[in-house]
């Protein structure tokens, strides 16, 4: 029996995700600027960009198919759903049984497939190149992410995220070595997935090494806005997954309003620290050649697998 | 009027008459008529046997039991279809100038005489007469093999004659030893060589003599069966003669030789209880299957290839009879039947195909389905049947043989699997090339007789899907004769 508060927290979560995703992106950019001793743009910059883009007319290539126009909405929808599944504020979510970790990974993959197809639709050199690279990052990142989640579901005997969180919160604080491996792997994966340095450079256009930007090169206006928004929500989702898997404390259990209220500042805090760390790592690492990416991701994948092995070796 | 007489003497008389008028245009029809009479007589005979059990004739000179009557009917049937097939075939050969009137006369009369010798060999009760008839079969066919008078046909015939002659001589020595063994029990006389009499006292025959005798008989009749390594004459003889002769040689003569060996195996098994004959048969069978399949994998001449496949199947039957036991023996008999049906059908189609393409080299035979579809499909399905593809009868016998072998002697099964695989690859790979593909050849002047082909394949199909209870009863009685 799911209470109304359940629906409320679900709704709240979605709203928070939609609203604060660009904020997180903005925050990361601000930190980057600070660390580079630049004068930082406003933290609200992403909102302005989105608003501007929404107002613009979107320009379509002559022979863009309907698929091309649908994809932004699909991707946006996928990311929203993802954010609503992941327990960011509360674990009392009516939607969470709809999809467990595996389905979540599938959801992200769905978004990736669609955006790559859209990129191939126009038939420009950059588009197909971007699609190829995106898929090729994806086919190594996905299993790695899955393994990361498995290694925590092995501890908690559950693949549903809420189940994992509740279980982790409730058991007494213990060191799980396999989670350490998983953490490192997860960090690497989320860098690759969110098109950050060292895998990709979000602040670039028209480099031969770009991935994400090449995908969306043909988009403009509201379509571009939706895709950018979806991208920042993806970042948000990944950070929340990280939080849920590794620092679940403070996420509201069950339906108690106080905890729910309390959980918002905690989340903000965690995200703030997370964003800052992200910027810091980006600062200290250099963009790697595209041919090095497989090694990078393979390392992540293997780390995750070793994490699971460690779990068995130390006999859970 | 005793149908047995009809079965025996129709071909004899017919052979003599055809020897006089064999070159006439009516000769082929006369040939067919003789075979038809023989066949119907054989059918009547069969009905009697199945209903009234074994019978003697001419005192004890002829003995008919389910085992040989079933072979008699089979022989008569294939003889009939072959004579039907050879009408258009020989007409084409004559138009091509390969058959002169004299040769036609020789062909027709010898064909009938050959049938006569086979019936004699099958039905006689006297093992000496059996030998005489087998030798007679060789003599009847040897001139047919060389009928085209080409260098290679002459060579084939010469080898056939010498090797089979020597083999049969050894068989005679075996028979003499048998007579010696019988002599001590029955005190000489004509009766001492009667199979029925020997069968009655077989457990008292002297083991030492019997084992020696069996060796000589096996080597002797084994030469005619084409068991490796006594097989060297077979591919030459079957490939060089006219196709109807190849059909009867592969389809019938091998069976008759095998029948002789079976008769002696029964006696020897009775005399010595160490199962030596079975072991020998198994050994020969496996060797034949293996060697035959590997050598057919490198043939270029279609008739040679299929005669090697005959060796392979004789090997399988020998193996089955070597295993012994009701199931394997049943399978062996079934295999004898379907093999002679299917193999002769294949040779019919091959004959037309070769006449069509004007060669026996497989690489030059192409696109049969385009030129004459019936021949093409006939050959395709015939080959698939001979390769043990269901729903044809060869499959059912191989099913029984393999499953039985797996429990009787598992070590032999890998050999069989290997051999069957190689055979499949080589035959199907070439046949589908001949059947499909592009060609420029023209259809033949005389429409080929396809009734025989499809009659045979139809029967093989029937035996694969459903064995009539009557036939089954017959088989079971025959099995009973052998296994006892």
């Amino acid at each position, binding site marked *: 029996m799911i209470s109304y508060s359940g629906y409320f927290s679900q709704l709240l979560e979605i709203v928070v995700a939609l609203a604060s995703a660009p904020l997180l992106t903005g925050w990361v950019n601000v930190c980057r600027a600070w660390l580079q001793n630049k004068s930082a743009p406003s933290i609200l910059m992403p909102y302005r960009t989105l608003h501007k883009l929404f107002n613009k007319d979107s320009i379509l290539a002559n022979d863009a198919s309907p698929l091309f126009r649908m994809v932004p909405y699909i991707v946006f929808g996928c990311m929203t759903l993802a954010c609503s599944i992941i327990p960011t504020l509360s674990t009392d979510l009516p939607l969470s049984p709809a999809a467990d970790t595996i389905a979540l990974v599938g959801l992200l993959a769905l978004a990736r497939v669609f955006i790559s197809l859209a990129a191939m639709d126009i038939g420009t050199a950059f588009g197909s190149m971007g699609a190829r690279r995106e898929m090729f990052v994806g086919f190594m990142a996905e299993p790695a992410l899955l393994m990361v989640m498995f290694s925590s579901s092995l501890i908690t005997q559950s693949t549903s995220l809420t189940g994992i969180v509740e279980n982790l919160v409730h058991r007494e604080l213990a060191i799980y070595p396999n989670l350490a491996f998983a953490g490192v792997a997860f960090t690497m994966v989320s860098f690759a997935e969110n098109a950050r340095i060292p895998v990709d450079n979000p602040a670039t256009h028209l480099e031969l090494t770009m991935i994400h930007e090449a995908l969306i090169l043909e988009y403009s206006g509201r379509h571009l806005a939706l895709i950018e928004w979806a991208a920042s929500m993806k970042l948000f989702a990944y950070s929340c997954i990280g939080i849920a898997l590794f620092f679940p404390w403070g996420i509201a259990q069950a339906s108690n309003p106080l905890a729910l209220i309390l959980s918002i500042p905690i989340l903000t805090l965690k995200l703030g620290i997370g964003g800052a760390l992200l910027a810091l790592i980006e600062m200290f690492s250099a963009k790697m050649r595209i041919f090095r990416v497989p090694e990078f991701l393979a390392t992540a994948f293997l780390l995750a697998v070793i994490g699971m092995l460690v779990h068995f070796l130390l006999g859970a | 009027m005793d149908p047995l007489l009809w079965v025996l003497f129709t071909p004899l008389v017919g052979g003599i008459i055809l020897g006089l008028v064999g070159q006439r245009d009516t000769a082929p029809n006369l040939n067919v008529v003789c075979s038809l009479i023989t066949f119907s007589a054989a059918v009547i005979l069969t009905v009697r046997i199945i209903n009234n059990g074994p019978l003697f004739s001419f005192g004890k000179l002829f003995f008919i039991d389910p085992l040989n009557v079933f072979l008699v009917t089979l022989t008569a049937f294939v003889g009939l279809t072959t004579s039907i097939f050879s009408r258009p075939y020989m007409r084409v050969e004559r138009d091509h100038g390969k058959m002169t009137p004299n040769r036609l006369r020789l062909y027709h009369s010898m064909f009938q005489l050959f049938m006569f010798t086979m019936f004699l060999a099958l039905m006689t009760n*006297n093992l*000496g*007469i059996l*030998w*005489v008839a087998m*030798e*007679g079969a060789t*003599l009847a066919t*040897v*001139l047919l093999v*060389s009928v085209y*008078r080409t*260098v*290679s046909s*002459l*060579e*084939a*015939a*010469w*080898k056939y*004659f*010498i090797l089979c*002659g*020597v083999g049969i*001589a*050894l068989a*005679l*020595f075996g*028979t*003499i*030893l048998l*007579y*010696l*063994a019988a*002599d*001590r029990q029955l005190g*000489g*006389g*004509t009766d*001492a*060589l009667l199979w029925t009499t020997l069968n009655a006292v077989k457990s008292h025959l*002297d083991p*030492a*003599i019997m084992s*020696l005798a069996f060796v000589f008989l096996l080597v002797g009749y084994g030469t005619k069966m084409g068991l490796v390594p006594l097989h060297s004459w077979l591919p*030459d003889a079957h490939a*060089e003669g006219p196709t109807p002769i190849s059909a009867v040689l592969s389809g019938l003569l091998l069976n008759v030789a095998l029948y002789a060996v079976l008769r002696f195996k029964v006696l020897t098994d009775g005399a010595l209880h160490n199962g030596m004959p079975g072991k020998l048969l198994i050994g020969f069978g496996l060797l034949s299957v293996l060697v035959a399949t590997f*050598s057919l994998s*490198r043939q270029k001449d279609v008739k040679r290839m299929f005669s090697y496949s005959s060796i392979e199947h004789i090997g399988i039957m020998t193996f089955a009879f070597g295993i012994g036991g009701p199931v394997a023996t049943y399978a062996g008999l079934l295999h004898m039947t379907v093999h002679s049906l299917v193999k002769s059908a294949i040779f019919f189609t091959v004959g037309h195909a070769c006449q069509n393409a004007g060669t026996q080299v497989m690489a030059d035979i192409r696109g049969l389905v385009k030129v004459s579809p019936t021949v093409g499909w006939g050959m395709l399905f015939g080959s698939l049947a001979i390769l043990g593809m269901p729903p044809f009868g060869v499959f059912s016998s191989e099913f029984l043989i393999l499953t039985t072998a797996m429990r009787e002697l598992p070590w032999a099964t890998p050999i069989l699997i290997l051999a069957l695989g190689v055979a499949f690859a080589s035959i199907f790979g070439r046949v589908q090339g001949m059947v499909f593909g592009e060609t420029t050849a023209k259809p033949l002047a005389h429409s080929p007789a396809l009734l025989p082909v499809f009659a045979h394949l139809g029967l093989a199909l029937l035996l694969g899907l459903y064995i009539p209870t009557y036939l089954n009863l017959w088989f079971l009685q025959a099995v009973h004769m052998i296994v006892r």
Partner: protein
Amino acid sequence: MTPLAPQIVNLLAAILLLVTFAMLSQRRILSLIHLFTLHGATLVASALVVAWVTHDSELYYSAALTLALKVILIPWILHKLILRLNVKWDVEPLINVPMTMLIGIVLVIIAFNLALPISQLSSSIARGTLGIALACILLSFLMMITRSKAVPQVIGFLSMENGLFFSAMAATNGMPMIVELGIALDILVGILILGVFLFQIREQFDNLDIHNLEHLKEED
């Protein structure tokens, strides 16, 4: 029964073996035929002896048959044949004569060993000679293997038949009459067909060398 008869039979058997060896080593074709005739004659003689001893009328008939076929008819046919085909050259065996002899001796030993246990069981007066009969058969076999011309092969074949006949007599005083007749018929037809063959080979290759008949083989 006289103790003399078995000794005569054994003597004849020894002669038979001797003749077989002679044929094995003989190069000239004409004398080969003569030897074959002698072979047949010895056979007839021994048959007559056995028949006389055992009062076996059938054996007289078959002796007569053998005389007619193997001593008179066939040698005569062969004579005619080689005159018609005028083949008078020497026959060079594939293996040289001493070697052949050596193998022959080995065969004789084997044959004796094989026949020994059996001949004990035989009721015939000529039982001791079963080994020799077998030896004759094997030697003729060897002869067919070692000769590279058609006619000597045929002669080897025929002497094999002789050996068979002799062994039948040695083992069981001859086969039943009807069988004997059948065998005789077969041999007769066989000889005729052989004649036809030799002519066909001749007209194909204008000599009787078996080497012409070695084309049907697996090409590599």
